[in-house]
């Protein structure tokens, strides 16, 4: 189990830094043009708000040392694997085409979400092939989208 507090602190820290980055970029775009707001006016205040509230969250988390709960490590692994499967789909599409890559994506996602025995894998494979055919018809033929 991974404590949620660690994730929250990490995310808040990243958002605080993002806020500071937005402020600096806002200043570089120009805050005011004469008496009227320039392109950097809104980003400046957005960055300020994000830095303020993310910073407040860090202070709140550090003050309250109690546990906020935890995430099951396997759940994180699942999220990571599904995201990797999607990335794999993006890369493979350039080599074997989107339809073939989508079959592999669907089988991978099915396995990640629990299809581990032979029967389930075969069922997921059949669903994947059927779905790929449907996607080709809908997107490639009906909507005439130039699939890779």
């Amino acid at each position: 189990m991974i404590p949620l507090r660690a994730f929250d602190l990490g995310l808040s820290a990243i958002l605080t830094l993002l806020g500071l980055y937005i402020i600096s970029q806002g200043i570089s775009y120009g805050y005011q043009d004469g008496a009227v707001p320039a392109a950097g006016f809104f980003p400046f205040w957005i960055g300020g708000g994000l830095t303020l509230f993310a910073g407040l969250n860090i202070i709140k988390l550090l003050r309250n040392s109690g546990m906020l709960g935890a995430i099951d490590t396997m759940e994180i692994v699942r999220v990571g694997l599904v995201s990797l499967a999607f990335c794999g789909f993006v890369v493979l599409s350039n080599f074997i085409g989107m339809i073939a890559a989508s079959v592999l994506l669907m089988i991978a996602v099915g396995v990640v979400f629990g299809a581990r025995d032979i029967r389930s894998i075969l069922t997921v494979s059949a669903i994947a092939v059927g779905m790929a055919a449907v996607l080709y018809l809908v997107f490639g033929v009906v909507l005439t989208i130039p699939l890779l």
Partner: protein
Amino acid sequence: MFDSWYLLADGLVAASQPNVLAAIMVGAIIGLFIGALPGLGPTAGVAILLPVAVSFDGTSAIAALGAVYYGAQYGGAVTAILLGIPGDASATMTVIDGHKLARQGKAGAALGLSIAASFIGGLIGLLLLTAFATTIARAAIAFGPIEMTALMIFSLSLVSVLGGRDLNKAMISLFLGLFIGTIGLDPMIGLPRFDFGEVRLFDGIEFSIIAVGLFGLAEMYATPPSIGKPEETNRFRFRELFPDVRATLKCWRELGSGSLIGFFIGILPGAGATAATMIAYAFAKRTSKHPERFGHGALEGVAAPEAANNSAAYGNMIPMFALGIPGSGTTAVLMGGLLMIGLQPGPMLFQTQSAFVWTIFGSFYIGNLALVAITIVLTPVLATCAFVRPSFLFPAVMAIIAFGIFGINNSMFEVMLVIGFGILGYLMMKLDYPPVPLVLGMILGPILERGIRRTLVASDGDLSVFFQSPIALVILLITAVLVASPWLVSKRAKQKADVVNTIAK
């Protein structure tokens, strides 16, 4: 006074065109299944279908997405009654008495009543939508840039209502959304902002990418693989699932009160269908001659929340269509759909795209009627589908997401963005950062920025113009009250608690 009804008649005719009818049927059936399936709510369903739907013509797209929304209200009750699992949060109150009735062998009575209540609630909601929408839109035409800016500030302050338990996290979410809204070319001078050297970000980030990632992918990431036990089978015979007309007629009071409560609560941004069902259930119990029956299989306990549920879905549409304010997560995503097809929701939509608006309203009437028959026929299938394993369902949904997002700009760059927003949405869900304020910020932020900058250009930087408009002033005062009220209420509660403790000592 009768203008709206003449326009609705034209809209019904336009919505009867084959392409729009097909879109309504497809959307309603998909919505029914999404409502029945635990793990995917109407917001996720509308978000996932957004990139696919907008590939079709604008009217069909919005008709289909709207049908997904109200179809899900029908579907949520089926599994709530038959299986004791609310398919969606707004079906939770239906479980209390609905599932008890099913266990007493009265599944048919409960289901029939829920279908009738959904239809009657939906119809009353639609009639009120027809009656009120134009009036509110006409009043809103008096809004110039100053008033619209004040309205956008009010809309963004709704984060205090829509933002959940932790206001600080809601504000983080809001500012993150405001930042995402600034990505792309500056609206006034065309300067690229936050494009990170990527030309594909010059037009900003497509709304559907964020919606699909935050609501669709995140929901699936968070669903444990153990949901869905294929060894469970439908325990009900088809014959038992037919409605009991007499039981339905007995609940006419609860159907009426639930519908009215649902619609007027639904109009309030942030209140949502779930709150409407709870208030309707509580009202029905309070005014019932036999309140002790509630919680033990009272038909009235199904009638009131189901009518409220469906009526609230249409009440939710009024702030979105008439004012350009999304009142819930689902209408925020729907509003994104309107923007994607080049339409700006708000009072001018009723002026410039009147035919479109009334065609959509006409499609709602047709869809609401069609769902009665569709739900009766598909109920046994819906009850079975609640047990489809994520390992079979999610691969198909993710493939649809991949192709749908690719189809926006024929680019894998957007698919990579969806993966990123999916991970962000998952983290936000786990860490209790509400996603709706992010959507609010992303949609309304650019409108607010244009309003403020145009107003200040016109007034040569004079901020006092915001206080010279009576309408803007009233809106800003309401905003201040809305923002301050949670803090004032908690301070007062704390003072009361201190007094009670002092007396106790």
